[in-house]
């Protein structure tokens, strides 16, 4: 009797696993289509630009400056299509894990001292590479406006705050340390002028 029960539990567990695997698989496939689409778009634009290139040089040559980019874009168009077809024909892709580091018990221990509500959004955002990519792009836009040091201080502090491993004291110390290092090595030693804000630093 007990055995049967165990089997049932196992089966439903397996089913659930299978379901999530199928779900994952759908997502992975979606990403592959996205990559294929990006490749087609990129190579399409590249092809258009290189075919309409102004050459104003020895045009009697069979191989012009435009030939190489044109040929390469055509190849990438073909490969992009091949990738999409391959994706469509493939059933599973076990190669890719979308969540390599889903929160385990141990991981959550790290952040348990914080309030539950706070934990939710930071726990999610602080682990997302996408959030950091967006942050980094914003950071690059702001550097010429507000200067390297001010923007970087905000960027590093906010990044460390999202990650929430260090105490706030350590966060500030690490930020200060990195900025001092940047100052001494780049400004003082290598004499590189980093962008400054309207306030002169």
């Amino acid at each position, binding site marked *: 009797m007990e055995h049967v029960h165990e089997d049932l539990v196992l089966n439903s567990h397996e089913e659930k696993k299978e379901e999530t695997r199928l779900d994952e698989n759908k997502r992975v496939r979606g*990403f*592959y289509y996205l*990559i294929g689409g990006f*490749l087609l778009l990129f*190579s399409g*634009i*590249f092809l258009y*630009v*290189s075919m309409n*290139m*102004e050459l104003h*040089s020895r045009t009697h*040559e*069979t*191989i012009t*400056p*435009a030939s190489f*980019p044109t040929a*390469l*874009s055509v*190849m*990438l168009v073909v*490969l*992009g299509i*091949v*990738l999409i077809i*391959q994706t469509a024909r493939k059933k599973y892709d076990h*190669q*890719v894990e979308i969540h*390599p*580091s889903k929160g*385990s018990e*141990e*991981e959550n*221990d*790290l952040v348990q001292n914080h309030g539950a509500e706070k934990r939710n959004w930071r726990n999610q955002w*602080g682990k*997302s*590479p996408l959030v*950091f*990519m967006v942050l*980094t792009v914003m950071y*690059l836009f702001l*550097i*010429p406006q507000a200067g390297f040091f001010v923007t*970087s201080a905000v*960027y*590093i502090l906010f*990044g*460390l705050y999202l*990650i929430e*491993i*260090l105490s706030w004291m350590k966060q500030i110390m690490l930020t200060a340390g*990195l900025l001092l290092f*940047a100052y001494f*090595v780049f400004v003082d030693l*290598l*004499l*590189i002028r*980093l962008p400054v804000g309207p306030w002169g630093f």
Partner: protein
Amino acid sequence: MFSLLLDGFSSAFSLQALFYIFFGALLGIIGGAMPGISSASAVALVLPFTFGMDPMMSIILLTAIYSGATYGGSITATLLNTPGTPEAAVMTFDGYALTKQGKAGKALWASLIAGTVGGLIGTVILIVASVPLAKEALSFGPPEYFALALLGLTVLAMLTEGSVVKGMIVCIFGLMIATIGLDPITGVQRVTFGFPILMDGIKFVPALIGLFAVSEAFDLIQHREKSGSVPKAGLWSSMLTKLELKGLIRYILVGTGIGMFVGIKPGGGATIASIISYSVAKQISPNRDNFGKGQLEGLATPEAADKATVGAALIPMLTLGLPASATTAVLIGAFTLHGIQPGPNLFTEHADLVYGVFAALILANFAVFILGIIGIPLFTKISVVPKPILGVIILILTLLGSYAYQTNMMGMWVAVVFGIIGYVMKRFKFPTAPIVLGLVLGPLLESNFRQSLLLSGGEYSIFISRPISLAFIILCLVFVALPIYWSIRDKKKKQTNEGVKASA
């Protein structure tokens, strides 16, 4: 040659150079020990800081880092069961098993000795082989260079791990990016999409920093696993016995041989070398059943192979200007940073530099050995810095570095865009080495192709009328044909098998 090598040693023995060798080896070991920093990203991370340095010193520093980083990975593989570099993955099998048995010290000695011997033999072969090879390469004209670059790309795309389509996509993407900017022959603006800032082209070094370091930083941020405690390794009390050493010699030599052979061809790389050498060692060992349960040779063979690839990968890079691995591609970036083009001319125009590299590489092996003995407790402590913190630190340092490289925001933008591309590529198992080789080889491939045609007055026969270039092109065809032949053969086998099954 020997007098030049002595000159190289005398410049490498200067106090400043010795400092850079030890410092580089130290940085390399630390980087290699940190999971997430490979030898390519360790070199790329430091590259921008060598900006104002003397070319010789900067090359010495970076070579020492390369040497140190290839060793560092095995420390954490052995002690913490986390490979610090991809090539150290197979070293966790026997290395960590030994640690669990309380034999961590012996394991570390074995990998240190194997790595040093492998690295030294690799360097000696590099020195012996590269001089005549460079002499031969001096007679190469544009057609030979074109054929060689084509061969490099073909081998890479065909033999790359994972899918051939992905390898080709990445490779062609790199070649396309390389065409942005001014045309190398006529100086016409190409695919700049109307942005004047793109006229200079996409600079290679920030792109590399993005692909290897920034992408890694994005990846590190999402990890939250707790780092394990570091086991104690009493190194002094656990030196290998004479008998153990004697038993290892054969495996170290086998590993070195495999490392040389795999490391010299494009896309070979240390990871493949260490995996192959592990399985070969398993086959030739009488204790093969105990592999994975703590066999010293299971650790020593891949370590020797790993370190031997350093010398091997430098052979095509120094003599032909062709990078065989991602790390050597970054090193090419270091040379070009100082306005020096690696290739056969390097041996005549900058002979001091070449022999300086040779001498530095030999000394770096000893430096790694010494640092390995002294510093292992320290390296393991640093390697347990929480990964997300490491990610943030890497992000800010790499962005600074890529700014410094171009002294404008363009460098940072290139690094971030390529960081995002590199992250997506890693996540979906696109190999990163082909994009780098595409970036490096693209201009070489194109300008030599067009120069050849200018030479021949538009006759394509120039590529097959010259024996060396013909040989390279035939090799290309073989490399394209082989995988196709194999897949057809396998399909036929399958069909006949199914046919047999069906009739039965």
